[in-house]
């Protein structure tokens, strides 16, 4: 590289350079993570969860048509690669006249994906609440909807925090795919730096490290949330 001192050996220069490169690129990576990866993951997860709740309820519903629709949706989402879903939305839809910008395209693809996976988690969590809780809700006069909202879902939420946290952490990592549809997120930044410096090993390992740091923080958030929701359960 340009400013290398003349009298150092090639190896020493490389080491020092590597270190400088690591330090110099750390903040751009973290910054891209904070400004793009995390917001992308949060927005997609929030929308995806709302969608998943609807799909889970349809899936449980006694109406065979609604239940079949939900099953079909879950099957398609889980049976096709996320990258393909993303490409269909960003590169495919324009060919039928629907052009979506990178950001919204990514949010749509990730939300639909989370919707499919989390629906099964939520469905299992709802079914794990004992039938007696529904009956107790009914006998104190609550309607089906109110019982679901006030009695069943809060209990299902507690059960579903660990698996949903998994979904969220997977999602944070999967947002790296958005770099392929031009969203300037963490991995897109890493690819750019790597292409510029040719230090693929160093930069991609550093990108991995930054993802890992984000996930560590999120995992500790999960523990805190579990603890909070566990306060009414005997240990």
């Amino acid at each position: 590289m340009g400013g290398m001192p003349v009298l150092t050996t090639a190896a020493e220069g490389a080491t020092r350079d590597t270190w400088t490169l690591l330090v110099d690129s750390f903040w751009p990576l973290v910054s891209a993570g904070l400004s793009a990866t995390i917001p992308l993951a949060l927005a997609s997860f929030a929308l995806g969860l709302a969608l998943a709740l609807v799909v889970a309820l349809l899936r449980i519903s006694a109406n065979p048509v609604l239940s079949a629709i939900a099953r079909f949706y879950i099957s398609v989402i889980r049976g096709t690669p996320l990258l393909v879903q993303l490409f269909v939305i960003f590169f495919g839809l324009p060919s039928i006249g629907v052009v979506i910008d990178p950001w919204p395209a990514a949010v749509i693809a990730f939300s639909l994906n989370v919707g499919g996976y989390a629906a099964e988690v939520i469905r299992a969590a709802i079914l794990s609440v004992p039938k007696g809780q529904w009956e107790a809700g009914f006998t104190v006069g609550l309607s089906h909807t109110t019982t679901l909202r006030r009695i069943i879902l809060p209990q299902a939420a507690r059960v579903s925090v660990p698996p949903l946290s998994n979904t969220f952490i997977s999602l944070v990592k999967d947002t790296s795919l958005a770099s392929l549809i031009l969203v300037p997120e963490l991995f897109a930044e890493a690819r750019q730096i790597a292409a510029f410096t040719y230090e693929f090993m160093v930069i991609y390992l550093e990108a991995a490290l930054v993802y890992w740091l984000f996930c560590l923080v999120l995992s500790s958030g999960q523990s805190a949330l579990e603890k909070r929701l566990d306060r009414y359960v005997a240990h």
Partner: protein
Amino acid sequence: MSRTEPTSDAPLLRVRGLRKSFGSNVVLDGIDFDVRRGEVVCLIGPSGSGKTTVLRSLNGLETPEAGELAFDDGSRFDLSAGVGRRARSALRDRSAMVFQHHNLFPHRTVLQNVIEGPVHARRIPVAEATRRATELLDRVGLTDKRDAYPHELSGGQQQRVGIVRALALQPDLLLFDEPTSALDPELVGEVLLVLKELADEGWTMVIVTHELDFARRVADQVLFFDAGVIVERGAPAHLLSTPEHERTRRFIARLLHPLDE
């Protein structure tokens, strides 16, 4: 909290022709009985005899294929038509249920459990519901557990909260599904005592139970169920001491002397 005196001679509830089957297995085969205001009716019989199904039908938790419930205010529920949502809600306004496994809401405190129905179903203001709930909790000696979660209570305390949750709905009819069967033996007494006090206050109660001694002392009427029919009915002194039917005799003997052949 005692109920108003009976205003007419009609029974509070007439149960007529309850029928239910699962495939070829007949669970209820024509159940008829009356419940008068202020009366305690105990349903006894072997498990699978249909007594719990009858009790749950009174609260719309089971849907028999045929039968009618008629209340003394003239409201009728034709169960053969399949109870619709509105009818079921009207039916549930009349009665409140206490479950074998209490079914308290684990994510809500004792007080929140008790006011859930009054506030979110009956639309009573929170302050008013809280005042009444506190009175009721005080009556069963649980004032200091108001803000505890159900898992922090003993089994007997949980069941007393279950009873208070039912009372808070101010129902015409209290329904109990084996309220002491899931309790440790030493905790049964405190729950039965509450039931006896409620009976003394004039609450109308239908109780599925295996506590024959309790039935003998508190019930006005005992119905003995076997294989989906009421085999025998009558005052407890008569039915429990000198039953007429062999099946009743065998059942009572088995409860009193489980080791005898």
